[in-house]
């Protein structure tokens, strides 16, 4: 599929102009799937810019990934726009990496209220603390699992 990527490239250019130092990498994985990597300290400013200036009005999901061989956690916010009809198929991935030994990031519930439950789940599955979250406690695992956060790579399954 070799459609033109002008829309994705224009988006990345606008983001990089606004935050020249804080967006470490930006690329287009495939059509309508751009991604940017942001320093964790500036994630809230970038998110507010995306919501207010570029029209990304909701978050599709929050995912935590455990890159244990590189010693870091990565948190990926997928966001998209519902009010701009031409941008409805575009999903922008906003990534931030934090070291595995001190997993703390800023919560984005004040920007996109829908991420509240996703951040709670990432907290209980990986042990990442979201500062500023209104209610950071276990969501699915109360009474279900008492051990270390289960989605970390050191928690192994019997059939692994």
């Amino acid at each position, binding site marked *: 599929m070799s459609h033109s990527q002008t829309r994705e490239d224009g988006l990345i250019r606008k983001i990089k102009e606004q935050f020249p130092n804080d967006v470490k990498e930006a690329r287009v994985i495939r059509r309508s799937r751009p991604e940017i990597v942001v320093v964790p300290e500036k994630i809230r400013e970038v998110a507010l810019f995306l919501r207010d200036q570029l029209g990304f009005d909701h978050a599709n999901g929050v995912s935590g990934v455990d890159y244990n061989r590189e010693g870091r956690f990565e948190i990926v916010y997928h966001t998209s726009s519902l009010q701009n009809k031409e941008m409805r198929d575009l999903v922008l991935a906003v990534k931030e990496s934090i070291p595995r030994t001190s997993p703390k990031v800023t919560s984005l519930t004040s920007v996109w209220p829908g991420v509240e439950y996703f951040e709670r789940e990432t907290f209980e599955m990986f042990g990442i603390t979201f500062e500023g979250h209104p209610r950071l406690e276990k969501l699915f*695992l*109360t*009474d*279900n*699992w008492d*051990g270390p956060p*289960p989605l970390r790579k050191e*928690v192994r*399954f*019997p059939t692994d």
Partner: protein
Amino acid sequence: MSAQKTSQQEDDPLAMLADSINVWVGKLSEIVKKVVDTGPIRSVVNWGRIYSLWPVNITTACCSAEFGAVSGPRHDLERFGVLPLGSLRQSDLIVVEGTITKKMAKRLRMIYDQMAIPRYVIAMGDCAISGGLFHDSYSIVNGAHEFLPVDVYVPGCPPRPEALEQAIIMLQEKIRKSKVYAQG
């Protein structure tokens, strides 16, 4: 029932009379139980139990879709007398459908304890028998038999409605052959 006797009550004639009535009532209830457990009365009592097995309103996990389909018009479960009506005290059957997580296992045991005897358990689906597809997951209990006394196991993932109907028939056979006070 006076469990603690004070020294005043030991010589109290009313208390001695109450204790001896207790003993007499206890012996009387044993006689009643023996009489009820004989041939014709036992068949009548079991007949009543068999054709009015009311399950608890519980839909644990994915097998509940097939339980719903069995209650529908094509595979009609009501012709066996199975109606999910009423409260826990009025139910005599609990169908554990699907995967049991540790969080739910505690509540399932509470529900089972609240049912009045006689009560029966059907473990529906592979997950309720042994953990099924999710047997190695961190949050599940591998089978309903770990904390409930199961009467009938229905394999399948999910079992076909006809399999569940056969399970009800097997449970009815089991009740037909059992004693009246099998569970106390």
